[in-house]
């Protein structure tokens, strides 16, 4: 019975996010291809999650959020019935993709369903917010959680966990986490979709990335898998943005990027820094009009102000991880920058790099790549993002007031995992530049 419910939950994800907002018009007369199934899934995931988030700002509980969402889907279907029928035909045209997608989803879902355990942070912080939403609590009720329960952390992951727990038939907690598996798989597909090779090659690279990155520990309720997925969607968009696009496509993709930055900001504290780094590197590297650059900067500031305002309105504390960075005076900072601490961070960084096979794989490809600097300008944004993220990790660790080794042991792997999609871009570039095909 539980097995059948897991399959039903997977089919629910596949169908809920298949109902499309008609955005194909944007891609008329486009130099790039029209949107395919994965692009539509990506678009829907980004828009629908933003919709859930926006509805939560209105202090709605998840019953009301779900009712609003289903009314929205009903109108979408009613007004686009012809479009919807055409979409149904696409399922048969893309049956191979759906088979791979379904198998990958079922394999991961079975692992989550059997492994079940929650990680340390998930039990300490994230599950309490999830239970609040699951029991029809709203964002305002988060202030009733114990201060030690991380009530002031961003809550998007917990909201999604609770929503998909609520709409499952068995009402067991882990059904909510199956949604993390769905986003993770679609995000990898979205990245591999940027390969300029055959569908077959894309599927092979998808499976290789899945094999090298999948580990149950990322699905034990921690939010880093969501950061990884949103960063993968962002990386996929970045590749698109550096290809020839007309104005309409450019604006459309930048709009999606801003929505993704919003999701990063509401997932984890470091998401805000990632959003800042991504926007900064695009402003620096993307050849776009000045007013679009200003629009991007203002959007980022508006998103951060929105987060502060929402927390202020509902009397939640906006304090950034007060556990670990208490003394930020000049003398305090100066006293923490020591050779010993720098050496310890570098030592643990090497261990963490060696544990992440995708990063090793991408670095090897980067080293053996011929004409590294031929398309350097096109990939500059990626190197800037990676270097700034690594610099951010280094700064966060060197300035911490709590046990440095404990922090490195428990956090560095996860931080590196969350930025791995930008290392995957190096793999994709290598395959594209060398016109490699899997046969």
């Amino acid at each position: 019975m539980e097995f059948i419910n897991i399959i039903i939950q997977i089919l629910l994800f596949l169908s809920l996010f298949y109902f499309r907002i008609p955005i194909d018009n944007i891609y008329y007369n486009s130099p790039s291809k029209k949107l395919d199934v994965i692009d539509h899934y990506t678009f829907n995931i980004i828009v629908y999650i933003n919709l859930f988030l926006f509805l939560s700002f209105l202090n709605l509980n998840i019953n009301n959020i779900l009712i609003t969402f289903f009314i929205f889907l009903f109108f979408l279907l009613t007004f686009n019935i012809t479009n919807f029928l055409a979409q149904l035909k696409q399922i048969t045209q893309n049956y191979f993709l759906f088979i791979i997608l379904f198998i990958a989803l079922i394999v991961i879902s079975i692992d989550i369903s059997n492994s079940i355990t929650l990680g340390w942070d998930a039990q300490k912080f994230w599950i309490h917010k999830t239970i609040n939403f699951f029991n029809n609590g709203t964002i305002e009720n988060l202030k009733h959680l114990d201060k030690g329960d991380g009530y002031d952390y961003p809550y998007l992951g917990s909201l999604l966990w609770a929503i998909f727990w609520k709409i499952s038939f068995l009402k067991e907690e882990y059904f909510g986490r199956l949604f993390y598996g769905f986003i993770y798989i679609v995000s990898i597909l979205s990245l591999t979709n940027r390969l300029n090779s055959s569908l077959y090659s894309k599927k092979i690279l998808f499976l290789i990335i899945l094999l090298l990155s999948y580990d149950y520990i990322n699905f034990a309720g921690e939010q880093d898998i969501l950061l990884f997925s949103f960063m993968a969607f962002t990386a996929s968009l970045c590749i698109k943005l550096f290809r020839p696009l007309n104005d309409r496509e450019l604006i459309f993709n930048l709009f999606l990027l801003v929505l993704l930055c919003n999701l990063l900001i509401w997932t984890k504290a470091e998401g805000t820094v990632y959003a800042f780094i991504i926007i900064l590197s695009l402003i620096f590297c993307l050849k776009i009009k000045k007013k679009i650059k200003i629009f991007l900067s203002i959007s980022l500031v508006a998103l951060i102000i929105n987060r502060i305002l929402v927390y202020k309105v509902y009397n939640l504390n906006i304090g950034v991880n007060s556990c670990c960075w208490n003394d930020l005076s000049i003398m305090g900072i100066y006293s923490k920058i020591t050779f010993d601490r720098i050496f310890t961070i570098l030592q643990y960084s090497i261990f963490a790099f060696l544990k992440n096979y995708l990063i090793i794989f991408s670095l090897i490809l980067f080293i053996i790549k011929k004409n590294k600097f031929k398309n350097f300008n096109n990939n500059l944004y990626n190197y800037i993002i990676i270097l700034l993220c690594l610099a951010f990790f280094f700064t966060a660790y060197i300035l911490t007031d709590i046990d440095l080794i404990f922090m490195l042991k428990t956090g560095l792997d996860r931080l590196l995992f969350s930025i791995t999609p930008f290392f995957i871009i190096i793999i994709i570039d290598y395959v594209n530049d060398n016109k490699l095909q899997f046969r």
Partner: protein
Amino acid sequence: MFLIIGLLSILIMKVEFFKKSYFILTKNFHQRFIIAYDKNQFSGFCSKESHGYIKYIQYNFNLKYPPTIINLSDRRVKLPYWIFNQNNHMIKNDKIILTNFELDKVFDFNNYLVIDNFNNKCFFLIRK
């Protein structure tokens, strides 16, 4: 096509898909939960954070709200009230789950009825 089948097979073997599917078909959620936490480095059935015993009590006594959990372990442990799918302010004081009790530790049993006793180490108690 062989490459795709090969990679899928590796993925299936990596996550032990068939073994785990068998467990899902033959064991219910509560049994799997207890087994999973028994293997967990921070927990066990009636050791460390004792998720297994707490789940066993919740399931067998059909508890909707969390009783007070007292863990007498000397280690730093979390109290997993979340197992009851309720926030901490719903904790009821008339029932107690006591874990990691040992004879050298002090606990006054006189005020409680022992409803369940696992190896004189973990107890489910109700206030008299």
